[in-house]
């Protein structure tokens, strides 16, 4: 029994000791995720407003873009933006920027779908009532439709944020030092692949769990009684 514990400690001790060094990458992981999430919300809102604009060609364009954006993986986006785009525009793109752009494009499509279904869940009576009261279209959106729609959208938006957080692990392949990159680097140095990948996997699990718990709290707070 003592032997077993000693063996366990000799493998896991150093791994737990380097938790601090790996978790320094969490700032990069979180920065990339939140930046992409914020930008994707803007992109998604633009796509949604295009979808709901009432102009046929604009709706068609937005629909096609959404379908195309969501059919590629984060990995392909990162490779495309980091390796292929600079060949056309002639300027190298820093890895972290390439990661953020890739995750933004991919998730704009998903967030557009979330926002569209949330905004269309606001009853048409609200829109009609606003029209009858003589409220302008932009004021109708900012003061009536969006505040109600956002409440419906929040749980799905947070679960999308967790997906972004998970997808952001791929930016290690172009050399951004996030937690996954640091973990694989240390694993390759020490040959303790199982231990380090388990550790980094659990780090993601914990962050995602915190986010989902926070989301259900916000959802309760914002609920219209």
């Amino acid at each position, binding site marked *: 029994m003592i032997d077993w514990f000693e063996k366990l400690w000799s493998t896991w001790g150093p791994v737990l000791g380097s938790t601090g060094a790996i978790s320094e990458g969490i700032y990069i992981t979180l920065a990339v995720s939140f930046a992409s999430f914020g930008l994707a919300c803007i992109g998604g809102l633009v796509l949604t407003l295009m979808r709901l604009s009432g102009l046929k060609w604009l709706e068609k364009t937005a629909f096609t873009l959404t*379908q*195309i954006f*969501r*059919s*590629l*993986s984060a*990995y*392909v986006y990162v*490779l*495309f933006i980091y*390796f*292929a*785009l*600079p*060949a*056309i525009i*002639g300027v190298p793109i820093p890895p972290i920027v390439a990661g953020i752009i890739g995750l933004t494009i991919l998730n704009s499509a998903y967030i557009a779908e979330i926002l569209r279904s949330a905004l269309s869940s606001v009853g048409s009576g609200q829109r009609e009532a606003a029209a009858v009261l003589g409220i302008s279209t932009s004021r109708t959106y900012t003061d009536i439709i969006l505040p109600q729609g956002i409440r419906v959208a929040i749980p799905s938006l947070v679960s999308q944020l*967790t997906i972004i*957080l*998970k*997808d952001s*692990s*791929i930016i*290690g*392949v172009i050399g951004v030092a996030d937690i*996954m990159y640091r973990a*694989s680097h240390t*694993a390759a140095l020490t*040959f303790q*692949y*199982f*231990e*380090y*990948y*388990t550790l*980094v*996997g659990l780090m*993601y*699990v*914990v*962050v*995602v*769990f915190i986010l989902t718990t926070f989301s259900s709290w916000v959802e309760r707070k914002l609920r219209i009684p």
Partner: protein
Amino acid sequence: MPDMNWGAVLSRYDLFLAGAAVDIYIALASFALTVVIGLCLASMSRGNGFSRTVSYILVQIIRGAPLYVLLLWVYFGVSQVIGINIPPVAAVIIALGIATSGVTAEVFRSSFLALDKGQALAAKSFGMTRWQAYTSVLFPQAIRIALPQLGNVFVMQLKGATYAAVIGVAEAVFVAQEISTSLFLPFEAYGALAIVLVLMAFTASFAFNLTERRLRIK
């Protein structure tokens, strides 16, 4: 805008097709795996307190772990612990099957919940066993409700299959990387890759829509 050389990439279309075939193979295999794991987790969440807790914890872990981490965990980590070299393709199929099983479990759980309670009661009053009720009454109806979302899961598998290039499986992304570095045509190679992958995803969702319409109860 620099000169383009699409001809050089397009003349290697057979490589892209072969790579895409590998992607489809991985996606189909891991789709089968995720349906099995998802059904297990979903039926566990309908069981007693203990199995419900286990299923809840498993789903939370599966949902929190990124596909890329799972893939390297299975390929480098698990193979190291069990002392067997897992072939790269098998590692991708296992990792992808696990990674999407959280979503699949949720899909099955909600489709079983969406069924009318009377269906289970009617099956019981006909003297069917639990197994008979599941296989011939509840499952055929639940799968129809689940199908549109399972289509999304399958597109997720197709996208996830591209991660296989990280551990050296010769699928479409790997082909594009090889062409990009050997001919030094990054834009053309990755552009062709994007077109292939988008077409693949579109075909998959079209096929699922078709199946959904064919299976609909009139």
